């Protein structure tokens, strides 16, 4: 499917010499002030007389050339604002933005070699699909034959050939999303920014598009910066990701690092289910009063008197709640040591009736000692960072 870059006279975005980051953000701060800021601050109940909102609060990030990088975080954590700062739609209050080593902080969007796929697609409603995709090339005065070929290639890549003459209003949501993608990719930017591009699609289509996006990215080798608040999406698609919280980056790393060694309690909770042991409970079970986390699938649920090996931890408790999920069942267990843990078990031989009947039963939870992981000392924001 390497339609876009192969057999093309123009140089493809060659992977830059190693070392030069595709995007570097240096202590980026964005505050919104004035009338809008005041209204937002009031509606979020920040403080009644505050007239600034700090959307991005000192972000340092390095995104490597050619990688699929995700920005993950809850609503309002500053992901979109960071993306808009990279694209140039907003100017930072403080800090600098570098693209491939070049300081672009003060440049307008049309002077930056990045393209954006907007959350609402932002297709031009008065143009056909073909004209939409050709827009960037027309502006750059690419000669007509080459333009037509590249538009055709880009539409083929998103599997929309034959739709050139349709208007955006005659397309489905998923098709519009793909037009938006083609419109950005056809310019061969060195960095592509995507703001929750799959947010409006249904689950099945979203999963399909995830695979497709990933395949396209591997193909064109353009740096993708992908904003999402869906942790599963971020984990499955990215080479690396950053977890955002209240305008700051909590942790940067590969999906596996993030999942297995969360740096803060926030990351542990946001990436996967947070099973936290703290204070007395941690003291009783692990033998140390720090903050620990155990992933639900690492925990085995056994009879109350089951034997516990030397390298294992055993914790007695009562099943409070059972959630049947089809392939798995999730049990919420209240430990005698005074905390709650979530356990997931595959429904290998269990039926929903049996699973649900387990409510109120006494159990012993057992996990390998090396599976409980100690989280950095702080609980709130920013532990180890990048």
């Amino acid at each position, binding site marked *: 499917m390497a339609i876009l870059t192969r057999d093309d006279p123009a140089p493809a975005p060659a992977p830059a010499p190693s070392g030069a980051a595709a995007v570097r953000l240096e202590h980026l701060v964005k505050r919104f002030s*004035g*009338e*809008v800021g005041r209204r937002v601050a009031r509606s979020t109940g920040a403080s009644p007389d505050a007239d600034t909102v700090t959307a991005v609060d000192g972000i340092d990030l390095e995104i490597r050339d050619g990688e699929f990088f995700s920005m993950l975080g809850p609503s309002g954590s500053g992901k979109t604002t960071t993306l808009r700062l990279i*694209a140039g*739609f907003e100017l930072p209050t403080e800090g600098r933005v570098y693209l491939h080593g070049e300081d672009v902080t003060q440049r*307008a*969007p*049309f002077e930056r070699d*990045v*393209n*954006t796929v*907007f*959350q*609402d697609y*932002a*297709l*031009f*409603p*008065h143009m056909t699909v073909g004209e939409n995709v050709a*827009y*960037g090339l027309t*502006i*750059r005065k690419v000669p007509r034959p080459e333009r037509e070929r590249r538009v055709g290639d880009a539409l083929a890549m998103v599997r929309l050939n034959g739709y050139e003459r349709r208007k955006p209003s005659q397309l489905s949501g998923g098709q519009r999303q793909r037009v938006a993608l083609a*419109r*950005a990719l056809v*310019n061969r930017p060195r960095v592509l920014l995507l703001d929750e591009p799959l947010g409006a699609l249904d689950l099945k289509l979203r999963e399909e598009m995830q695979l497709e996006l990933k395949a396209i990215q591997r193909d064109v080798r353009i740096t993708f910066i992908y904003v999402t608040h869906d942790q599963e999406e971020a984990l499955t698609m990215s080479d690396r990701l950053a977890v955002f919280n209240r305008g700051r980056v909590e942790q940067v790393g590969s999906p596996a690092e993030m999942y297995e060694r969360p740096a803060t309690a926030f990351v542990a909770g946001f990436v996967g289910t947070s099973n936290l042991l703290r204070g007395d409970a941690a003291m009783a079970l692990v033998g140390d009063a720090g903050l620990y986390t155990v992933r639900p699938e690492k925990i085995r649920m056994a009879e109350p008197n089951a034997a516990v090996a030397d390298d294992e931890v055993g914790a007695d408790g009562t099943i409070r709640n059972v959630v049947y999920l089809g392939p798995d069942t999730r049990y919420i267990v209240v430990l005698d040591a005074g905390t709650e843990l979530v356990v997931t078990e595959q429904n290998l031989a269990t039926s929903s009736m049996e699973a649900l009947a387990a409510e109120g039963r006494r159990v012993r939870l057992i996990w390998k000692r090396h599976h409980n992981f100690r989280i950095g000392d702080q609980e709130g924001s920013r532990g180890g960072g990048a």
Partner: protein
Amino acid sequence: MTVAPAERPAAASVSRRVAIWLDRRPRVRLALLLAAPVGWLVVMYLGALGVLFLNSVWLRDEFTGLVSRTLSLDNFIEIATTPIYRTVLLRTVGMAAAVTLTCAVLAFPIAYFMARVASPRVRGLLVVAVLMPLWASYLVKAYSWRLILSEDGLLNWLLAPIGLRGPGQTEIGLWLVFTYLWLPYMILPLFAGLERIPSSVLEASSDLGARGGTTFRRVVFPLVIPALAAGSIFTFSLTLGDYVAPSLITTTQFIGNLIYLNFGAPNLPLAAALSVVPLLVMLGYLALARRLGAFEAL
């Protein structure tokens, strides 16, 4: 809702049964809803137009001065072949076109500022400011302009120190007055049209490499053509049909004045025919706007 409370069973069940009956019959519902307004429209509006049209194809008897109900196109032929009528007609259409163009040029930056630059607070104030002149009586405004433009009026008094004179009570003066009168009717639809453009669409254009001017030409302007057409229909038709401002400001004649002169005694059928002409011009204008795709995006 099978176990309804037992209170007021009779009343409740009647209204409920009516509601259920209506719920199954969307056409009846629609008919009930639209009966009054459609009736009004047909009788008062289309009826009046029909009478007007009928009158325009009747004739006035030269000797008795009475209207004879014989069908003929003589009135229209008279309008088309009498030089003075032709001149007046062209003058009126030209004036309407000039006023429309000026209004569009003046309204665009104002509407753009209101819709895309001003803060919500300033925007609210500006909308009120644009609407305010519409609250004043049209006659008062026309009279004020007559005074402003008159020989020893405000405008000449203001321009005298720098050695200039105002246009006076001429067609140029009238053009100014019309532009002033109808400007809000152009600003408001343009404002609404510009406000409807999502900012992400403009950002996308910039993101794809277009500077401000290019974005304006390729994205903003095409997207507000329907609004521009809507506004121009107002300014064009209002100018076409007006006779008060022309008679107050100038001594030149426009269609409105001719209709007025022919109304009472002189020649009712001819007046009717003269009224039908601007209607036809407007229909042509609407067809043209439609051809340009002005209504597609509505």
